[in-house]
């Protein structure tokens, strides 16, 4: 499996290390040429404003959006979740906007509001790091909620799109990445 990891800004190396340990082949995506032959795409954590700006500057915005709309499996963490959100409650900016969810940015406040916890993801108890994290305020029809922490939706899936508000790539649990690779495998089959 060949997984592209958006490498414009943020914690993309951590995703590459985790996916590689699970047997996937990874490509850093910085330009349109890097998109050839991908079976899946990861949108890492970082700053969504910076990544959104760079998506447009590099010309990646349109081909990525088309690919996702055509069914390319995609997994967004934190900023990646924001990039995929159709609506952002406290920000006028829209990025890829392919997933029918409404998100609130920096929903737990500033860095002092960042926290670590254990909670269930798709039925498995895993460690979760929330770093200046968003959460999902509302999901549309056909969106499956995969994780709820303190009454707030922090992981969800709609068809080929998987999002988490937390950062599985910086913990020692591979559960979410395995879940994503299963999505990729099912899509290839």
């Amino acid at each position, binding site marked *: 499996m060949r997984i592209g990891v958006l490498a414009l800004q*943020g914690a993309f190396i951590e995703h590459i290390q985790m996916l590689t340990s699970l047997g996937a082949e990874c490509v850093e995506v910085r330009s349109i040429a890097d998109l050839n032959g991908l079976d899946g795409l990861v949108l890492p954590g970082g*700053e969504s*404003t910076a990544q959104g700006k*760079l998506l447009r500057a590099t010309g990646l915005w349109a081909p990525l959006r088309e690919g996702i709309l055509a069914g390319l499996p995609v997994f967004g963490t934190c900023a990646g979740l924001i990039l995929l959100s159709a609506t952002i409650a406290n920000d006028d900016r829209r990025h890829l906007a392919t997933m029918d969810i409404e998100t609130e940015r920096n929903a737990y406040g500033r860095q002092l509001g960042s926290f*670590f916890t254990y909670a269930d993801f798709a039925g498995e108890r895993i460690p979760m790091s929330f770093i200046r994290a968003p959460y999902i305020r509302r999901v549309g029809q056909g969106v499956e909620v995969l994780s709820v922490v303190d009454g707030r939706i922090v992981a969800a899936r709609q068809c080929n799109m998987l999002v988490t508000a937390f950062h599985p790539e*910086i913990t020692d649990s591979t559960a979410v990445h395995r879940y994503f690779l299963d999505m990729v495998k099912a899509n290839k089959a």
Partner: protein
Amino acid sequence: MQNERLQLNRNLAQMLKGGVIMDVTTPEQARIAEEAGACAVMALERIPADIRAVGGVARMSDPKMIKEIQAAVSIPVMAKCRIGHFVEASVLQAIEIDYVDESEVLTPADDRHIDKTAFDVPFVCGARNLGEALRRINEGASMIRTKGEPGTGDVVQAVRHMRCIQEEIAALVSVRPEQLDEAAENMRVPRSLVEWVHEHGRLPVVNFAAGGVATPADAALMMQLGAEGVFVGSGIFKSGNPQKRAAAIVQAVTNYRDAALIASLSEDLGEAMVGINENEIALLMEKRGD
């Protein structure tokens, strides 16, 4: 500071990687920086070049001014306190700053650094070599940057510091295990920290470049030398076209190996900051704190 909090603070620095952190002095500048794609801003009353020009004692900025910048942008906001001034740091923590820079750009308040393990808020500190970086990490810093020579537009010191840190890490990786005690003693840090670097071949925290970065090519140079991101202080808002230069530096950091792109990004940027050579300046900020 609990272990968990330290980890979360290191994690925030991981999220800033591949990005540009820009010095700003007003909410308007902060908005320009955010629009240009900055991954964070450093709020301060005077940028280093002006601190040099004005002279005198440079202190923490007015909290009101920092709060106005916090209100203006959605990206993380950092602010500087003086080396050793733990009360300035606690003031910045009280207004919920995202990162405190215990900075040699301001006038030091003590010969020793802040015990950063006593705080919940994360700290970034400057370093010229591996020993200095590890001492700051041992004190609780969750991010390191080169000191460089701030406010000069002269990148040579940042280059020296980054090269030195990288070379000393490479040397530490190749020493025999029985030499680790001596290395720890020389660097005045616990053996466990030296062991970690020996095993992993990198710092246990994110390492950015800072000090004298003024052009897209400067930023890409620091990335090619191993920086994980770049601070740009005086270089942006002391230049002719801050908006364009800021966006160009952001793109150069992302595509730091693409010379053709950096060439086009470098066109028509207007005046760069004037700059002062390192041997023309009276005050060497990099010598502050060890």
